[in-house]
């Protein structure tokens, strides 16, 4: 803590005031304003009416002008035309959509067996089993076509995101100026509420797979760009010099030295791209993403929890499989063969893959034109070959109804409802509702002062000024109360995530095995479509603030656990050993050695959690909220684009304030600890 005090005294505020003085002054001002609130004129409590500018109309006018009068829409439509062609072709290959190159639908057995061979090639029989089983599951429960529809978009969005992200990443690494421009833009893209993407996406890129691809890419690009830049920056200077001394030209350097050496980081980026693509499968259903996501929403709409659950499982399985495949690819450096190994031995996987392809295509040709028949009529042989070609709806072994019953029975167990009822009562009445009211009571200016003080304490002068400006903008956008409710949910969810997640991470950090399991759990929760557990949450906790916070919590917990774990495990073993030898207890070791060193990493986690929370709080509108999300939903009726963006940017500015301040803190801290 001594360190923190030191660095706080270094920044010098305006008029020569020391940093901590400025913080104190701002906080005192905030408190005075709050205490005096009952006697303050209205104009000091909330931004007065005359201060609110007609942003809505301006945005509408500019949008109209740029899109149609300047013809920007023609540019984007031209691009989406090309994109559509690619999407259609992939869709044709995967599930026989009636487009170029006009193949028939591939039998599921072909896809499943080739996927399994690929799994084997990359990661041995375990991965082969997982990969194969996932596709068999999708076919057997009758979700084959939807799965292929989903994958047809993922298979385009992920490589495109990977390529584009990689290119921008390289550009950022080449030029500091570009990096400085791109970074804040990426952040805005990530925290801009999803509801703000809906309309522009369908207007600019045409509702359907194209808009879905673009929206998915908007969310999956940032980590790819970041990881590429990090990877390229990390290439060992000796390798670079070796390249130069070998007489590489600039292009040869990039192609033969930098990119291969940054392979691990670049592929971690790819992995993130894949995970985010699958996480977006449900949300983008609103703008034309076909397949599993749309079916899941449909199931929810008619309250088929079991069906929704089953679809959710498929999405998670796909995510896990694609994730494992791409990770295996990272680890799997090429192998060498003894000289004289025959061709087929070197390319054994290709040979097996092609063989299986021919076998199953052949089988499916046998049954082409045949109508599906019950096993009694067709005879086992024909029936079986028919199944290998296509699992028809009536033959599918979906257990949706069984799960549905099980889930609903569980949710109505007295033991469950009485506990959740008590939690709901306590948390809502004694915690959330009072804090919410308190936050709404505080005058706008006091909140702005407090936020500025916080930003100052964390990041120093620059972030404080930005925070002040950003919150003033939010205030004069005119949706202050809703903004505060949003902020309230975000804070509570992050706070709760820290309270619950930090101990979990500490527990997990004690052994390799636990850490691995915890990370798997994190991955699963991150990709399991949140919609699936929203409904049970509503049944247990009602449409109330606690449900909203819980739904956000799942997403905020993940980064907190992940980064805390990483931070703790990243502490050099010499240091913990030194602490042990100094006779530190576990607790002393944790508080005196591990946490201080892990803090910069944990801070990144908290920041991630905040960004996720700002994203999810808007999605939580699905439950029913009274914050900005709800108001954004209102803008959807009548397609009020300007209004929508004013609300969207209220969220963006709040999120940016915290992001900038926390990152500045983590950066400073890292330098102080000599970790940078």
């Amino acid at each position, binding site marked *: 803590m001594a360190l923190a005090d030191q660095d706080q005294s270094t920044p010098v505020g305006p008029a020569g005031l020391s940093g901590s003085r400025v913080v104190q002054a701002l906080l005192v001002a905030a408190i005075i304003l709050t205490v005096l609130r009952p006697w303050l004129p209205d104009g000091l409590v909330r931004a007065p009416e005359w201060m609110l500018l007609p942003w809505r109309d301006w945005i509408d006018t500019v949008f109209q002008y740029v899109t149609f009068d300047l013809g920007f829409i023609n540019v984007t439509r031209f691009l989406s035309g090309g994109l559509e062609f690619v999407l259609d072709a992939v869709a044709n290959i995967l599930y026989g959509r009636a487009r170029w190159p006009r193949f028939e639908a591939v039998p599921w057995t072909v896809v499943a067996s080739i996927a399994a061979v690929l799994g084997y090639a990359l990661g041995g029989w375990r991965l082969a089993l997982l990969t194969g089983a996932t596709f068999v599951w999708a076919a057997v429960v009758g979700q084959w076509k939807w799965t292929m529809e989903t994958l047809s978009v993922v298979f385009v969005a992920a490589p495109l995101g990977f390529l584009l992200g990689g290119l921008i990443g390289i550009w950022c690494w080449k030029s500091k100026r570009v990096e400085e421009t791109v970074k804040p833009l990426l952040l805005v893209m990530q925290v801009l509420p999803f509801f703000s993407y809906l309309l522009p996406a369908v207007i600019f890129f045409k509702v359907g797979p194209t808009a879905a691809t673009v929206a998915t890419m908007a969310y999956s690009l940032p980590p790819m760009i970041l990881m590429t830049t990090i990877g390229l920056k990390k290439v060992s200077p*000796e*390798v670079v010099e*070796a*390249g130069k*001394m*070998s*007489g590489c030209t600039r292009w040869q350097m990039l192609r033969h*030295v930098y990119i291969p050496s940054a392979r691990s980081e670049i592929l971690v980026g790819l992995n993130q791209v894949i995970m985010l693509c699958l996480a977006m499968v449900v949300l983008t259903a609103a703008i034309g993403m076909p397949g599993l996501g749309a079916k899941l929403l449909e199931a929810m709409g008619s309250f088929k929890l079991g069906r929704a659950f089953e679809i959710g499982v498929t999405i998670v399985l796909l995510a896990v499989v694609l994730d494992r495949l791409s990770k295996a690819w990272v680890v799997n450096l090429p192998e060498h063969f003894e000289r004289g190994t025959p061709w087929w031995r070197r390319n054994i996987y290709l040979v097996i893959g092609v063989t299986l392809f021919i076998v199953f295509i052949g089988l499916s040709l046998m049954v082409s034109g045949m109508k599906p028949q019950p096993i009694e009529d067709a005879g086992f042989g024909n029936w079986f070959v028919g199944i290998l070609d296509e699992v028809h709806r009536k033959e599918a072994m979906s257990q949706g109804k069984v799960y549905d019953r099980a889930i609903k029975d569980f949710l109505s167990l007295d033991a469950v409802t009485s506990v959740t009822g008590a939690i709901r009562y306590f948390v809502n009445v004694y915690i959330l509702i009072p804090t919410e009211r308190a936050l709404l009571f505080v005058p706008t200016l006091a909140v702005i002062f407090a936020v500025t003080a916080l930003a100052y304490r964390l990041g120093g002068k620059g972030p404080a000024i930005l925070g002040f400006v950003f919150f003033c903008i939010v205030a004069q956008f005119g949706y202050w109360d809703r903004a505060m409710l949003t902020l309230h949910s975000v804070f509570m969810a992050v706070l709760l995530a820290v309270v619950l997640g930090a101990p979990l991470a500490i527990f997990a950090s004690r052994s390799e095995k636990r850490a691995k399991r915890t990370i798997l759990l994190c991955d699963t929760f991150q990709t399991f479509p949140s919609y699936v557990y929203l409904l049970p949450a509503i049944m247990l906790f009602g449409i109330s603030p606690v449900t909203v916070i819980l739904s956000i919590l799942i997403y905020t917990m993940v980064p907190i656990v992940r980064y805390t774990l990483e931070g703790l495990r990243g502490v050099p073993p010499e240091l913990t050993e030194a602490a042990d030898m100094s006779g530190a207890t576990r607790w002393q070791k944790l508080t005196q050695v591990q946490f201080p060193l892990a803090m910069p990493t944990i801070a990144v986690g908290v920041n991630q959690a905040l960004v996720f929370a700002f994203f999810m709080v808007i999605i939580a509108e699905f439950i029913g909220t009274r914050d900005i999300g709800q108001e954004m939903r209102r803008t959807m009726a009548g397609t009020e684009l300007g209004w929508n963006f004013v609300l969207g940017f209220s969220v963006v500015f709040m999120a940016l304030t915290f992001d900038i301040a926390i990152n500045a803190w983590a950066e400073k801290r890292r330098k102080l600890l000599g970790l940078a």
Partner: protein
Amino acid sequence: MSDAPVISAHNVWKLFGTDPEGYLAKMPQGRSYSDIQADGYIAGVKDVSVEVAKGEMLVIMGLSGSGKSTLVRCFSRLHEITGGTIEVDGQDIMALNEKQLIEMRRSKMGMVFQSFGLLPHRTVLENIAFPLEMRGQDKHDRRERALEVIKLVGLDGREDYFPRELSGGQQQRVGIARSLAIEPDIWFLDEPFSALDPLIRREMQDEFLRLQAMLNKTIVFITHDFDEALRLADRIAIMKDGAVEQCDTPDKIVLNPATPYVAKFTEEIDKARVVHAGTLARPDLAANGDPIPAGTTIHELARQLVDDDREALPVVSKDGVIIGGLDRRQALDILLGAA
């Protein structure tokens, strides 16, 4: 060794900071390393002048941060120098454009790195053939030449291994082979053996001397290990704070350390094992009887020095010419550690 120098550096400066050129132009004479540091700049290389003759091995010795690695990177223009001139084969390398620079590296220079700098995704063969590939040689030639060098460094049979599958010593052999693939005239070695175990290091040094005896390259070798420097060098340049403290043959450095800093290194050295008879031979000292070869060390002559009763012993060079007389007393002093 008498031709024009292969590398010749004059008053070379390399400063790190916000505006090194501007600072150097305005900098008054005689600023010390710490004065410069106080001004916000780091002097990586400070007013260094040195020449390397053809076929000579110059060892640059210094502790970490002394600027030795920076200096060698200036020779190959991996670093752009701030002031002074560097000529390679009479060509001012700072005047080369990018294409010419690449051409020079492709045809004339090889470099070996402390942590090997191997490309992890390429096999031994592909790593070694990398410089050839970069200059566009066809695949067949590449392979042939690479196999040649692989044999030279004793890695036969490991062509298809990946760097991670090799030991440290083997990896550095790959690094050496890669640097030799293009048959460079000038060979830079940046602490090539520092990352290796002491036993392997010794073995690699022997190997290196064997190679050099065969190839006779012009070499700039960097080390922080004074023993290594003594063992390998024709001449040693000892660096501190970016500047060369002393540049001379090992014998002379050991006998006459120019500064107290250099003396600190030589103190612990068994001089008898370093100093050669030829160095001590004085032309003005007449001597008779059986001559001793100039290339033997005093240590090697120990028995004779004790047994012989002559005041001075004649020293004969490699080509059989008497170059002077060796003062036996002086040699004995060195042997006994009195000098």
